[in-house]
């Protein structure tokens, strides 16, 4: 019987899980799921393309799409993929301290990407683009909204995984403190770009500064606690998480090209031409 490439560690003894196919069942399941996700996002992108330039009223993409901003957010998501693969690499090599650091990076960068998306959606809303206003709004928000939901799920999954490779006790407390401080800083950023209103008595810039300072302090505390715990047994779990995270990245690679770069020049002149022709 073939042996799967996956291993589990039990009381320091490493043994191989045997499967009838020779492939890890959970990894096979994840690849099958990602295949079905390809069809899901393929359908959404096809719908966007079919209804491209079919809107009868504005706002039009050429009026509101901010390509430089989205290029930066695309870069952030790409770098989160790099951080993810480094986290997996260090986990497979059983380097717990480096793995603990790098597993938080894709979660932080993914949160940053979501911040960009929240800012963009708010700006579009202020410009008058809503899911109901025209076909562009409907297809745009459905496509990018579903992608954002996938990123949100990925961030939560990564945070759970970071907990599994953190030593219990003070390690868990410092991890929680670091995360809370980081998200406090994110709240400050969202407030400063007017995505959320200022909290009365505490302007967003103050929240941001407190968040950054406490993230640094809690982060230094967390990562100064060295551990010798084995993390290699989490390698397969982290690999499955990574597959999902990289998939989210490749979907955005396509969305960035189709929705932003190619469609950024779409406007009433194209729509009228199509409608009249």
């Amino acid at each position, binding site marked *: 019987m073939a042996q799967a490439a996956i291993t589990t560690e039990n009381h320091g003894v490493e043994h191989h899980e045997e499967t009838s196919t020779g492939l890890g069942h959970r990894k096979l399941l994840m690849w099958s799921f990602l295949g079905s996700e*390809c069809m899901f*996002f393929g359908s959404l992108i096809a719908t966007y393309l*079919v209804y491209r330039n079919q809107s009868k009223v504005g706002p039009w993409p050429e009026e509101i799409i901010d390509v430089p901003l989205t290029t930066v957010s695309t870069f952030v998501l*790409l770098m989160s993929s790099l951080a993810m693969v480094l986290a997996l690499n260090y986990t497979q090599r059983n380097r717990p301290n480096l793995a603990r650091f790098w597993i938080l990076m894709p979660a932080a960068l993914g949160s940053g990407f979501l911040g960009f998306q929240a800012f963009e959606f708010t700006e579009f809303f202020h410009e008058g683009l809503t899911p109901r206003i025209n076909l562009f709004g409907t297809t745009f928000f459905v496509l990018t909204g579903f992608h954002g939901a996938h990123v949100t799920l990925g961030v939560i999954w990564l945070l759970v995984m970071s907990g599994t490779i953190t030593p219990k006790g003070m390690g868990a407390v410092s991890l929680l403190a670091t995360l809370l401080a980081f998200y406090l800083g994110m709240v400050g950023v969202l407030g400063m770009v007017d995505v959320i209103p200022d909290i009365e008595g505490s302007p967003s810039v103050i929240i941001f500064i407190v968040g950054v300072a406490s993230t640094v302090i809690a982060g230094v505390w967390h990562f100064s606690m060295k551990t010798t715990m084995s993390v290699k047994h989490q390698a397969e779990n982290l690999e499955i998480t990574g597959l999902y995270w*990289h998939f989210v990245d490749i979907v955005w*690679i396509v969305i960035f090209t189709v929705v932003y*770069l190619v469609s950024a020049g779409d406007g009433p002149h194209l729509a009228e031409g199509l409608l009249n022709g």
Partner: protein
Amino acid sequence: MTTEESGTEQQRPNFLRRWLWHGDYRYLVIPTTYAEEPEPEGESPFGRAPATWKRKWWDWTSGDHSTVFFYIVIGSILSVITLSEYWIFTTDLQQVWVNSSLFALSAIKFFMVVAFFMHLKFDNKWFTYLFGAAFFLAIAIFLSLLALLDKLNG
């Protein structure tokens, strides 16, 4: 090929064979010309660099998981491609050239992430077949939907 070159033990050939056999180190030895000799290693305008880089690439990309340096190289290439996409977007080229370049670069990024970051290049081939089949099915659904909805819209 001589016995020395092949590196395998062979039976000693008989007299007739030794006498007539062309190229063997026996009675009718025809001197080896330079054209018949293998290319000396590193004899190219770039010296040994292509062979060295080929070997390094093999070292980086083979095995269960690759090196940190390799992943940073892939991440840098992806970043450069993203910047190039933005640069192409800002140029005044014809729209057809801009769009086709953007789709080509997007496809390169897609396959680089799938192959290297998602480890399909290093992993069991059945994962590649599974994802490849689903991907082509997704493309088929994508094209069918384009055609169908386009027809319905008139």
